């Protein structure tokens, strides 16, 4: 318990420090003094300084923390319920399903108001749910979910939904969906307050669902029968954890785009340092995911000033090699 608290405190501290630091960097040449003046309300801050710090940097930092946290916890959830170390929203194709839902919602004209933000999340959840279920049905065999089959099923479902998105983009007027191509790479933008509020609420709900199953997910690691002997209804645990992970994926995709690999890198890095207990992993993954994505996004918006890289490019550059590492070092042990 003390270990959990120490880990959480350290992560929270690092996240807070990076969040404050990120307020000071960006493509606009704002002096440190100007940022401090805006934050404290004392000194000489121009209206433009306020817009840059409070309306652009702050909401974007918040969105990065929420999206990173959501994706990492979704990763822990998927890994726990499939007992598969490579399971992750983007690898499983669940992100693609959610992205298809979001693009479909945009075809119907949904944008960024508070009600519309809820609608967008609902579409994303429906897409994530369909994609996740499809992957499960394709991969589930007699002896559970074999590592490679699950990953392959995820790839197939992901390709299917990516193609479906391409079809939508092709048949709908380009002018209405022109921004989608950019968004598909993972695009953190300063969200308006209502959207940020919806994002926070949905993420909290998903987090609560996965956290609530974290102890039973530990027992699930013993296998469905082993869990049953300990009085755990494996199917029920899986369903709840799946709902939570899908909801988290949906929220992150709806508001930040299908950013890949966060749910892979963060849980594994934490598992290496904190051990496999999901009760520790879920809360620390939320903080660690936010920390990781915020770091990636701060790089994304400062590397090629005054332009910006999509943050998904950076997470993919980190994540793809990490995926290969996991595949080579662990699959031999875990594959049937």
């Amino acid at each position, binding site marked *: 318990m003390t270990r959990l608290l120490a880990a959480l405190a350290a992560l929270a501290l690092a996240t807070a420090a990076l969040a404050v630091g990120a307020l000071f960097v960006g493509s*606009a040449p704002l002096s440190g003094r100007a940022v401090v003046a805006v934050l404290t309300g004392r000194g000489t801050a121009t*209206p433009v300084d306020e817009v840059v710090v409070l309306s652009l*940097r702050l909401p974007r930092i918040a969105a990065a923390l929420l999206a990173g946290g959501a994706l990492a916890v979704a990763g822990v959830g998927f890994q726990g319920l499939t007992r598969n170390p490579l399971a992750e929203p983007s690898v499983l194709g669940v992100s693609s399903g959610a992205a298809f839902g979001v693009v479909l919602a945009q075809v119907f004209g949904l944008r*960024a108001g508070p009600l519309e933000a809820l609608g967008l999340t609902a579409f994303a959840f429906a897409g994530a749910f369909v994609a996740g279920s499809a992957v499960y049905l394709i991969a589930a065999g007699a002896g559970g979910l074999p590592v490679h089959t699950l990953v392959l099923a995820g790839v197939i479902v992901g390709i299917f939904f990516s193609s479906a998105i391409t079809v939508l983009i092709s048949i709908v007027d*380009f002018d*209405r969906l022109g*921004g989608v191509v950019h968004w598909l790479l993972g695009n953190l*933008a300063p969200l308006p307050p209502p959207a940020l509020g919806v994002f926070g609420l949905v993420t909290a709900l998903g987090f609560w669902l996965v956290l609530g199953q974290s102890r039973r997910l530990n027992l699930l690691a013993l296998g469905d029968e082993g869990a049953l002997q300990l009085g755990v209804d494996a199917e029920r645990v899986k369903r709840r954890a799946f709902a939570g992970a899908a909801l988290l994926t949906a929220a992150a995709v709806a508001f930040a785009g299908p950013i890949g690999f966060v749910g892979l890198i963060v849980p594994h890095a934490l598992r290496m340092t904190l051990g496999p207990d999901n009760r520790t992993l879920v809360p620390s993954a939320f903080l660690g995911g936010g920390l990781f994505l915020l770091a990636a996004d701060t790089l994304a918006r400062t590397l090629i*000033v005054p332009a*910006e890289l999509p943050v998904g490019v950076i997470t993919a550059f980190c994540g793809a090699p990490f995926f290969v590492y996991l595949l080579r070092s662990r699959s031999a042990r875990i594959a049937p």
Partner: protein
Amino acid sequence: MRRSVGGRRPLGHGRSLGTIAAALLLTVMLPALSAAGLSVSDQTGRTLTLPAPPRRIVSLVPSVTEILFAIGAQDVLVGVTDFCDYPPEARKKPSVGGMVAPSLETIVALKPDLVVATSAGNGEAVLTQLDRLRIAVYAVNPTHLNDVFDLIARLGALTGRETEATRLSTGLSVRVTAVAKRVAALPRPRVLYVLWPDPLIVPARGALVSELLVLAGAASVTAEGGDGYPRYSLEAAVVGSPEVIILASHGHGQGPMAREKWERFSALPAVASGRIYSVSGDLLHRYGPRVVDGLEQLARLIHPVGP
């Protein structure tokens, strides 16, 4: 929406407004008729030999389509793209598809003796494939306002309508001069021009829109932020403290304006004073005669009152 806008254009040689008249008089590419046929050099400097003046032209460039109509050469136009939507009669011409990947089959079936293409919007592959099919390609690559006049003169010469081309150019350049003269002495407000809202794309060094903003009496806050039409970060755009924000619309005014995205920044001078306007990107992003309509609109928005 011209798909080329996201790309970076090479910096052209900067010719000033004053040379427009010279370019008009020169009509540089008076076709040389020889025994081998007609030898012309296109806007990219390539020389091509035609057996005779072209009588069946396929235009893969919306601005070329507009110019051909404007100089009354529409009868030689046998094919256009889906993006050639002006004048409305252009829609009645057979379409060969989009700009990036037009249907080669359809082009061949139209039996053109000349295809006018742009390396900026059509992609190198299209030009190479047309070459391989032994279809004569006249390549254009306008990057500046002057190139519009150059293009008009070239297409006039190609289609034997030099008189109409000169008349069109003279009328346009008179209007350009009138705008420049009206705003010359007025203070230049800081203007943010948004070509595309998400990802944010703005006009910078060497972009036609940057040139038009200067002519319209504006100080573009993104003028030095890269080459051509770069992707831009929101905060780099905002920190210029724009007094006027101009949002380009695309495709019949229903494109993504994202006006509400800017209205949230109520501390910006442009938002505080309600000076967020919209203009049709089809006017300002195409190298056709209507670019002067766009210039006049810009000047009216930026300097509503004045001499």
